[in-house]
């Protein structure tokens, strides 16, 4: 680290040196009377600087790229992620050509055509053929990039396959809450933001029978490998954005407007640990839309595992109703029997109905699967 700082410092010291030596030359020359077509003050050293900086930039950019490359994100762990990665490096490759070419011309011309005594610039106000060439060539390159990008984009944003595992993720200040459809029906129940309270953090609507086996997890998201996963994304308070760097997934979470994103993870956490030779590797979910004080630490761990372990993990989770049996009071009477399945016998006595019956009564709820 200090090595790099030393290099920056060195660059600036060299620059300062060059500048000071020039300054002295300039100061002595100031005293001489200026003739009309003398070389303008400081022109030659500034011309030379363009070449110095050009060479330094080529070395600096190449070296820093090679140095930084190992820290760029590792190979994507999702199918579409590898595709966008390829597209990214392909586009970057194409764009490096004009970047190098144009900057070379700017620096080179500045040096080459610096003021020379008795020289006269060429009067060259236009050339339609040239203008046409550099209108059409960028247009063609753009068209190509647009087309590849557009195809990738429409595939990524197409509707999720029917067999996708549907998982709901809700952002709040400052953590994520994950909800699964549950093992018996694997369907997410309806929700309503007015039903949210300290326990029912995502507003599960218990008058919907699909919600009876839903389970929540505020610390970890598990997903099966090699199967499409459809994230249903919601926000409770302000904007958030689900960002899974290794999956190349990002989608805003918007209060009042559910969003979605589907992807196919194809590397388990264990595989990544082996690939990277890092036994502590974890997939992470971050927030990328500024949401307040805790924005920088809104972390949720993600575990990608094979189908069997995923099923096993799901089966081990306690459903919302098992965790908070008092919410049975909110289940309509005709569905109570169904809701009580799977609950331990001693907790199935309905809680104090008077306390909770009125909350959310008669209110429409949003279907999670719209």
């Amino acid at each position, binding site marked *: *680290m200090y090595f*790099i700082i030393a290099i*920056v410092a060195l*660059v*600036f010291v060299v*620059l300062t040196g060059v500048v000071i030596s*020039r300054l002295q030359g*300039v100061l002595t020359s100031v005293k001489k009377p200026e003739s009309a077509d003398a070389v303008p003050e400081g022109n030659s050293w500034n*011309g030379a*600087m363009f070449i110095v*900086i050009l060479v330094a930039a080529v070395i600096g*950019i190449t070296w820093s790229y090679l140095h*930084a490359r190992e*820290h760029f*994100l590792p190979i994507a762990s999702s199918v579409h992620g590898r595709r*966008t990665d390829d*597209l990214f490096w392909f*586009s970057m490759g194409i764009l490096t050509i004009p970047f190098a070419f*144009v900057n070379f011309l*700017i620096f080179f*011309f500045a040096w080459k*055509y*610096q*003021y020379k005594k008795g020289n*006269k*610039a*060429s*009067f060259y*106000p*236009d*050339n339609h053929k*040239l*203008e046409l060439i550099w*209108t059409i060539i*960028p247009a063609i390159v753009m068209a190509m990039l*647009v087309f590849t*990008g557009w195809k990738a*984009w429409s595939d*990524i944003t197409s509707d999720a396959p029917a067999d996708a595992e549907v998982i709901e993720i809700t952002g709040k*200040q400052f953590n994520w809450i994950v909800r699964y459809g549950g093992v018996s029906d694997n369907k997410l129940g309806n929700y309503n933001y*007015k039903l949210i309270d*300290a326990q029912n953090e995502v507003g599960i609507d218990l008058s919907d029978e699909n919600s009876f086996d839903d389970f929540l997890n505020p610390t970890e998201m598990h997903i099966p490998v090699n199967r499409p996963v459809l994230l249903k994304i919601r926000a*409770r*308070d302000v*904007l958030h954005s689900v960002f899974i*760097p*290794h999956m190349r*997934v*990002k989608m*805003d979470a*918007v209060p*009042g*407007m559910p969003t979605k994103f589907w992807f196919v993870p194809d590397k388990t956490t264990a595989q990544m640990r082996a690939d990277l030779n890092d036994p*502590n590797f974890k997939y*992470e979910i971050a927030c990328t*839309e500024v*949401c*307040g*004080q805790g924005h*920088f630490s809104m972390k949720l761990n993600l575990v990608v595992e094979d189908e069997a372990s995923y099923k096993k993990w799901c089966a081990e989770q306690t459903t919302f109703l098992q965790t908070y049996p008092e919410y049975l009071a909110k289940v309509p009477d005709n569905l109570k029997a169904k809701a009580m399945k799977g609950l331990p016998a001693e907790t199935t006595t309905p809680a104090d109905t008077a306390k909770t019956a009125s909350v959310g009564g008669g209110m429409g709820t949003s279907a999670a699967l719209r």
Partner: protein
Amino acid sequence: MSAIEGMEAAVHHEEHAHHHEAQSFWQKYVFSEDHKVIAKQYLITGILWAVIGISMSVIFRIQLGMPDSNLSWLRPLFGNWISETGKLDPNFYLALVTMHGTIMVFFVLTAGLSGTFSNFLIPLQIGARDMASGFMNMLSYWFFFLASVIMFASLFLQTGPAAGGWVIYPPLSALPQAHPGSGMGMTLWLVSMALFIVSQLLGGINYITTVINLRTRGMSFDRLPLTIWSFLITAILGLISFPVLFSSVLLLIFDRHFGTSFYLSEIYINGEALPNVGGSPILFQHLFWFLGHPEVYIVLLPGLGITSEVIATNSRKPIFGYRAMIASMLGIAFLAFIVWAHHMFVTGMNPFLGSVFMFLTLIIAVPSAVKGFNYITTLWKGNIVFTPGMLFAIGMVSLFVSGGLTGIILGNSALDIQLHDTYFVVAHFHLVMGAASAFGLFAGVYHWFPKMFGKMMNRTLGQIHFWFTFVGIYLIFIPMHYVGIAGFPRRYYQFTSYDFTHKFMDMNMFITVAAILSFLAQFIFLYNFFSSIFRGKTAPQNPWRSNTLEWTTPIVPGHGNWEGEIPAVYRWSYDYSKPGATEDFIPQNIPYSQTLESNFPHENELIATEKEIAAQNFNDQFNQAH
């Protein structure tokens, strides 16, 4: 004609108010209606804001690059925003980021750049006595000043200034319970911006009217310097887009204070479900970026115009492809209005809409490429003089191209999924819009300083300032692209919470060191600027041997700019190094009949029209007044 007569009536009135009475100090230097004084007011205010805005960035760069450093030395200034142990408060970090963005985009690069040079150069380069309405022009500055005072005051609130990012997306910005900065700080932000927009509109209407109506004899649109074209197009962009920001600000004020639900729906916060339903936070983003994207070009186009003028003058060559330059600016301006949603690819907006906006966005690369290549061809076979202005103009082209290219990546919605809201975006727009426009500003200040103050800035100091700044900018922002490719999200107080950001500590420190050094280099400029106002060498009549009309005024132009008649214009402003001419420049006010040795055949035909041009005089506000 009626429009012109209307204007003359207004001007006539103004002349009576001013021309016959001696002006008091207040009228002359404070509540001045003279475009040159107003331009300087904008410039000085802009410089002060820039110092504040850039200092803020240095503080949060220290937080990002050297998270362990002890900031207790800032406690006298920031009080409890710095903890007892010398740590920056996370809320204050967000406030710094927000205010840095707001200040730099609006107060420095919109008001400081466009306000300074549109005001200063439009009358001088088109040959007018002053702006169409000096009074509106004065109001424009003082509304800006008021906006500045309110924004500045918000920095001292106990709860801090606005802190939801410079884009102030609701619901965060709408709900005081979501963040301390969304309380009084956001209220003041909104009031300040509303006043700022009023200022921009007063200024913009004036610029457009002046360019259309007050051009001198012979100054047809195809003889306007590219600076004026860029200011005109900028003003039109502002006039169309700023009212939309005004409406979005207004609706946000309604949501905050009057219980409406334009942007709010289904929110549960602090243990309470809010009653608002039916609004959409995405609506705000659409309205905001309908201004926000043209704003990028409002910031950039004046820089491009200044660069065109400075590069042509100091290459001693006509600008290559004058008409193509105008066409590409018009193209960029038009496209600027139909690409806004590329800021919103991952907001859950309809993916088909994303495809449309991706297509439109990438078209912008074409006129931008034309501009880049035209600048380079202007350098080709020139006879380049490296004045500080010229160095900054060349640097501007390099930054514009380098930063613009990564825009092609971000405009691609499939690639934007990963890169959105990472440091890749930050690096991209700082190069193409921040640094490039700032370089345009520097080029303009160095180039027109002699006209503004009648003094020369120190050339060597200017050249030194350029190299430190230019190298510094690249040292900051190229590594920042790397950090972005690694997926580092922006607006993070620190990178310690995640494994995937547990790297590049050295790179972030490198960026911070480069940022501090570049910041320090700006003091060379500040010293040079302020000391040259008082102690600079007196400027010659035409220090850069330039063609445009401002150099035909007295060295320090007084009220009305020209003593006696306004010069007539007979040619475009780019007759540099014309074959056959003895000098390597022919100013715009020299008729073709005096340059027979260098005229092209079609120009000899224009000699016949010269008498007619000389006879016109309906635009001289002084002649009308007497």
